[in-house]
């Protein structure tokens, strides 16, 4: 691959931004963890282990948003640098609405996860905490609904791409969960937060879709 093209490839752009996001988030979370008087002293931010995984978790979402933004920019300008790679998004009547909806809901999801941290401080009631736990679920459900509506606008080859992407995402996520499960069982790692599964499914789906598009188109 040509060096100029490599620099412009979406994966390199996303990877580069993702690396810096993790770096900055780790430093920020370490700072918050070392300041016990801050509001971040409870729940998700309460241990170094959780803080590290929260950073990875937010990275997944951030990668997703950046990927959606790159798609959005590329679609607005077909002659942009991304066009040179020969990579093309699946064209369908619902694709623009899908990208817009996913980007908005991913941002809402991050806002919901972080704001729920603040809301937890307002009450000690387990019932209220239960209700707060549902806040990030709403944008997650809207993302699933957007995907469902998008799939209805696709033709047979595009559905094949979606199926291959789904299988790619499903297989890696389930094998990953199984591996982590054994790690926990044999006490190699402590408790592992399962909320990262949802964003990882979507990010892996995006990667799987990219690979399937490269293969079929």
């Amino acid at each position, binding site marked *: 691959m040509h060096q100029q093209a490599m620099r412009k490839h979406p994966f390199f752009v996303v990877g580069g931004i993702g690396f810096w996001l993790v770096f900055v988030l780790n430093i920020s979370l370490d700072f918050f963890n070392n300041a016990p008087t801050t509001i971040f002293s409870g729940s998700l931010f309460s241990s170094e282990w959780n803080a590290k995984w929260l950073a990875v978790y937010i990275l997944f979402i951030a990668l997703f948003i950046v990927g959606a933004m790159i798609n959005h920019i590329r679609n607005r300008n077909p002659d942009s640098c991304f066009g040179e790679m020969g990579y*093309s998004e*699946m*064209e*369908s009547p619902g694709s623009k609405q899908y990208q817009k909806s996913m980007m908005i809901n991913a941002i809402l999801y991050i806002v919901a996860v972080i704001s729920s941290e603040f809301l937890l401080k307002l009450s000690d009631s387990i019932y209220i905490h239960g209700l707060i736990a549902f806040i990030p679920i709403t944008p997650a459900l809207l993302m699933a609904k957007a995907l469902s509506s998008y799939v209805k606008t*696709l*033709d*047979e*080859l*595009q559905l*094949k791409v979606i199926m291959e992407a789904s299988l790619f995402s499903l297989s890696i996520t389930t094998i990953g969960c199984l591996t982590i499960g054994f790690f926990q069982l044999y006490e190699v790692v402590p408790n592992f937060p399962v909320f990262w599964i949802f964003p990882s499914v979507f990010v892996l789906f995006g990667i799987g879709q990219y690979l399937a598009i490269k*293969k*079929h*188109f």
Partner: protein
Amino acid sequence: MDNRLKVLRAERDWTQQDLADTLGVSRQTINAIEKGKYDPSLPVAFKLASVFECLIEDIFSPDNR
């Protein structure tokens, strides 16, 4: 499978988008069929035959490679 889709389309001076709109599929699917990267389903193959007013065998043939 080999196919003569590109030739048939060129004879009628249609773009990939024109054919895609007629068949109700995406332009990328037409492109993938022309390149031999994707073999269409029977309903799409019958639609193609109907659009080009010929038999399916006139468009598609077994891969000779």
